[in-house]
């Protein structure tokens, strides 16, 4: 199997993680990527929204049986199911977002990101903005690697600027199914962090994080940093505080991988997508120039490897 010849009239399917294709999380970004490619190739694309973790396999099989050519599965939780299906349907190409590939499988591309790098930049930004030398973080759950990477990166980045900075942050206390869908906890925790002196809040955790961002926005003169996509576009409620977002270019990554299937250059294995800081939008002119250049340098350094976040080593 593997890459080989270019394909005509590609059939593209997407299986979300528990959630929906327009839920303002990476589910949505991935689906947008699929739609971009579909539009470009002028083909149909379909999706299945997963309701429970136990349905992953069935939902993927749904597409596989209708012999779709590309199946995008979103989220590390689908990794195992994806590999199982890939073995069963070697002719089908699989794109697994956030799925780390222990060893290379010809028809599976794991689209992964260095969340720690995005988080690191967010940390630097936060540490440079804070007046109180106290910053906060509201995170989904440490049961999912990507979130851990964001948090660790964030704290390392912050410390790189202010070694003895005070960081108040927490993971959602509930079960995994709730960790990303509890905006009230996110909001309340953000408020609690603010009461605790934090004046910049980084929120990484789907709806939970969004709750934190919108809460921060309601307090005068506080900053917040979004995650995954550029939340300036997805979360108008957060505009008053949203300096930037620590983004993973899922949309772009998925798009490119699908195109590679189309033109037959698809390769299985680990594929690293870009992760970094989004545009500053309205805050662009409020931020000091040297900070922006500094962030740009760090980003460059992280990409070319001259600089390391220190996470995972």
């Amino acid at each position, binding site marked *: 199997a593997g890459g080989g010849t270019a394909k005509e009239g590609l059939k593209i399917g997407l299986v979300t993680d528990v959630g929906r294709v*327009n839920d303002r999380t990476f589910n949505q970004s991935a689906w947008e990527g699929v739609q971009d490619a579909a539009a470009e190739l002028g083909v149909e694309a379909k999706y299945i929204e997963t309701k429970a973790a136990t349905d992953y396999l069935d939902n993927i099989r749904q597409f596989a049986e209708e012999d779709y050519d590309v199946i995008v599965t979103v989220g590390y939780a689908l990794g195992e199911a994806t590999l199982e299906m890939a073995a069963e349907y070697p002719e089908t190409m699989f794109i697994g977002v956030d799925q780390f590939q222990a060893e290379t499988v010809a028809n599976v591309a794991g689209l992964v990101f260095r969340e720690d790098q995005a988080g690191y930049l967010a940390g630097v930004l936060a540490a440079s903005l804070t007046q109180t030398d106290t910053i906060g973080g509201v995170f989904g759950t440490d049961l999912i690697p990507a979130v851990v990477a964001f948090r660790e990166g964030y704290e390392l980045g912050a410390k790189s600027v202010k070694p003895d900075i005070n960081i108040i942050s927490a993971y959602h206390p509930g079960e995994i199914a709730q960790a990303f869908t509890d905006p009230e906890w996110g909001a309340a925790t953000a408020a609690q962090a603010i009461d*605790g002196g934090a004046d910049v809040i980084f929120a990484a955790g789907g709806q939970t994080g969004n709750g934190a961002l919108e809460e921060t926005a309601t307090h005068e003169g506080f900053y917040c940093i979004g995650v995954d996509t550029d939340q300036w576009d997805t979360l108008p409620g957060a505009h008053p505080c949203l300096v930037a977002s620590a983004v993973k270019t899922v949309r772009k990554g998925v798009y490119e991988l699908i195109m590679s299937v189309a033109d037959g250059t698809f390769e299985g294995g680990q594929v690293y997508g870009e992760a970094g800081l989004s545009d500053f939008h309205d805050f662009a002119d409020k931020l000091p120039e040297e900070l922006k250049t500094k962030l740009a340098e760090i980003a460059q350094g992280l990409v070319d490897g001259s600089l390391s976040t220190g996470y995972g080593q």
Partner: protein
Amino acid sequence: MAPVETTARRASAGVLRRRWITAGLTLLLLAIVILVDRTSLGDGPLGILFGIGVLRFTLRAAVPLIFGALSGILCERSGIINIGIEGMMLAGAFGAFAVKSHTGQLPLPLSLALSTLSACAMGSAMGYLHALLSIRFRMNQIISGTAIIVLATGLSTYLFDPDWLSRGKFSDIAIPVLARIPVIGEVLFTNGLLTYLALAMAIALHFLLFRSRWGLRTRAIGEHPRAADTMGVNVNRWRYINTTIGGAVAALGGAFLVLEAVGQFKESMTAGRGFISLAAMIFGNWSPLGALGASTLFGYTQALQNQLLLSGITRVPRFFISMLPYVTTIVVLASVVGRTRAPAAEGEVYETE
């Protein structure tokens, strides 16, 4: 008759003692809180226990529970079991959001008012449905309540469109003089409208329940509907009324989440709060002030565990810290409260031939 009167007295004496204890504890707590905030005590563990952040979180977490528990009390005191609080709350949240996100062009206060109303409408609809099923159609009330939950979850998720966005929510209103009291002012008297409503409602309902004509009749039909009926009280009419209002009150809990706390709606965002309110209701022994206390306790334990997480306790696995609220509830329930007493006629259909 001598022994009889003494037992009666003994009972009332117990009540009095309990009141004094509660009052004493409250004062003690206030003292600590102020000290923590004003003095260096706040830097230590006491800061974690009684810091402003914790207290504000407590109230915030308590509000939906208060509404939920009061809803439960309204229904169950009149003899209708209400397992469906979770569903009514969710319906309320959705109702509020549906209107809020479509009245963005209106001035905020107006849009908020409309949204709150729509929440109550949704809730009352659910409450009325519950009453209809359990009274008119003699349906088992636990089943009916469960059905309400499933229905509300299903409908709200099915109809909800994530592209709906709402802007603006109830903002804090500082109550003129009171808000300037140290700490208490900040915690109690600088809040959104619905928070005040929750507190006021708990107190008002308590007095109404135990001092008003409506309250007397409600308690009677919950304990012994036949007796009430023979005294000319229209049992089922009051049950309909209370359950419908109960639905609206639960819905206010949902409205709080959407209109005051989060600002947005999310599928099943009530996240089990309805069930915890159920616990709060039983815990508070079906009395509004009791429920207020229980809800506050639940809120506090949540705030506390959150504070511990935020302050980066690493020796204990975070999972065990997060058990705090639930373990506390069980322990308190098993040690202090002991046996609670449900309205005697709960769950029984009342019919006359």
